[in-house]
């Protein structure tokens, strides 16, 4: 019995998965984005190693310094090197984005899969709830949730997770519904494979790529919204610093030292663009109709 079910595994084999990655990286835009995202992650994780200055090295002789060779991004209000601060800020921004994405994907997947399995009233209820929250502007809902949960780093992760869960649930539901129509699913059911096995070994691996593409876009949105909240002073709070808080500090001295907010702004833009492009290309590679 077990052997029959095992032989039926139509899971994407490791080799085919590797082929998918090659196909993705053969697209120039995807390859560049992949390199950019890797570089940003590396720069943040290895900030203590690659940053040109120690984390909090003050220099009272160079307050609000313009970009120079010694300080490519300039210096801040305490004479700290802004490139160093951007690298360390990436730790906060990327950590928040990664955890919020993981939260949104996990809850969204369970939510969507539950709806897809239990068509009928539960499906209807779960999806109507998702629709309701999808109707609100994200930033506005984010601000209301900040009012409700506060703006500690943990709250921000929770808030971003909540914001992106409904859309993920919709996608998880539709991709699972598509899998439930397939022959391999019918075959697995008809040979009597237990439900947990069908879910873990058949359905999950086949919906994972679609959800991964989505995760890349959610991460981009999370960086975007975290930066927006921090920019109006309602996101990451000092002394913690994300790209958004650097931008907020820089914005307050925009008229005297305009380069201060520009560089964190560009880094946010590049990160969001790269993650979006990666997600878009992944979707295209996966969708045979658009290949």
């Amino acid at each position, binding site marked *: 019995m077990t052997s029959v079910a095992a032989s039926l595994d139509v899971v994407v084999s490791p080799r085919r998965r590797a082929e998918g990655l090659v196909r993705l990286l053969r697209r120039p835009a995807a390859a560049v984005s992949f390199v950019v995202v890797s570089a940003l992650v590396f720069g943040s994780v290895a900030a203590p190693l690659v940053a040109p200055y120690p984390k909090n090295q003050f220099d009272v002789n160079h307050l609000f310094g313009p970009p120079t060779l010694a300080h490519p991004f300039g210096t801040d209000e305490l004479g700290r090197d802004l490139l160093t601060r951007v690298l360390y800020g990436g730790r906060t921004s990327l950590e928040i984005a990664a955890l919020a994405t993981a939260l949104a994907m996990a809850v969204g997947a369970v939510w969507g899969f539950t709806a897809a399995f239990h068509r009928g009233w539960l499906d209807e209820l779960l999806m109507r709830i998702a629709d309701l929250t999808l109707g609100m502007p994200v930033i506005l809902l984010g601000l209301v949730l900040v009012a*409700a949960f506060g703006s500690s780093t943990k709250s921000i992760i929770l808030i971003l997770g909540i914001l992106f869960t409904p859309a993920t649930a919709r996608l998880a539901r539709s991709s699972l519904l598509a899998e439930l129509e397939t022959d391999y699913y019918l075959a697995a059911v008809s040979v009597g494979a237990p439900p947990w096995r069908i879910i873990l070994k058949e359905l999950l691996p086949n919906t994972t790529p679609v959800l991964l593409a989505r995760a890349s876009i959610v991460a981009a949105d999370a960086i975007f919204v975290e930066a927006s909240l921090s920019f109006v002073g309602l996101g990451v709070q000092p002394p913690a610093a994300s790209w958004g808080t650097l931008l907020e500090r820089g914005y307050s001295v925009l008229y005297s030292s305009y380069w201060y907010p520009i560089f964190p702004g560009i880094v946010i833009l590049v990160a969001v663009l790269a993650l979006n492009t990666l997600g878009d290309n992944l979707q295209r590679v996966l969708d045979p109709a658009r290949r």
Partner: protein
Amino acid sequence: MGSYVLKRVAVSIALLIISSILIFCLMRVIPGDPTITKVAGASGNAASVRALRAVRHELGLDQSLPAQYVHWVGGILRGDFGESYYSQFPVTKLISQRIGATLELAVLSLIIGVLMAVPAAVISAIWRNRAFDALLSAFTAIGMATPAFVTGIVLIVVFGVKLNLLPTQGYVSITHHPIESLKTAVLPSITLAIAIAAPLLRILDASLDDVASAPYIRTAAGKGLLRRQVVMRHLLPNATIPALTMLGVIIGSLLGGTVIVEYVFARPGLGTLVVDSVFKRDYAVLQTLVLLAAATFILSSLAIDLLYGVIDPRLRVRGSEAAR
């Protein structure tokens, strides 16, 4: 047609009621008692228990939740949205003071955004030039990835700080001083317009592409029409429907977009009022603004849906059959 309209209106009203309940519940979850801010704010120090209780009674916060909800909704139906917990002005007054700046920004940026997206998509469909198309897709990708504060800051630096051409802060009422008003609105409107044009262009391009492979387009080209005529008469009218949906979504969430743009350009509009009321935990103001946003979204999707019925006869028939 009549039953289709009735059904859509009924659904919208139901959505509005559900949203109001959700918003009300959400606001009651907020920790941090607004009455403490209010009493402490008035006397400048810790609040006495009796003063707190008096204020809670005055604001109706000592009633049960359903009673509070009915009181709130009853007030709204009479045009009374309550008073700010912080400044004690009626919420309607705060909103009417601020709505001008937001409306001006919203209308201008919508006009500029549509004027950027539609001609670009049409030119791309007529011209079919690879370089131009690549340029457009770069614009949409970058436009969708650029947070409004980055666009805003760049525009302030270039046009305000470097060239000193345009004002970068504040708001002048259009009835007071039309020219000054438009000048202060230029940079914020362009900032928001880019965020509007990018997704609109993307969807318009995709649907033009989809329709382009339809048999009737080949027929139109085959009977000898100029490319320009094919695009304007056959392609464009059929490709506008998905773009209209997107436009509805954009209009519905404009209030979200204005939050950041108004903040960057220090415009005293509804967006900055949202940020202020979150900072001050002024939930009488906040719940009204969120309800306003929800109503805007629901009404704009209702309007777009009804518009479909007018422009697309197929939907009209299918819609009324579904309603039966």
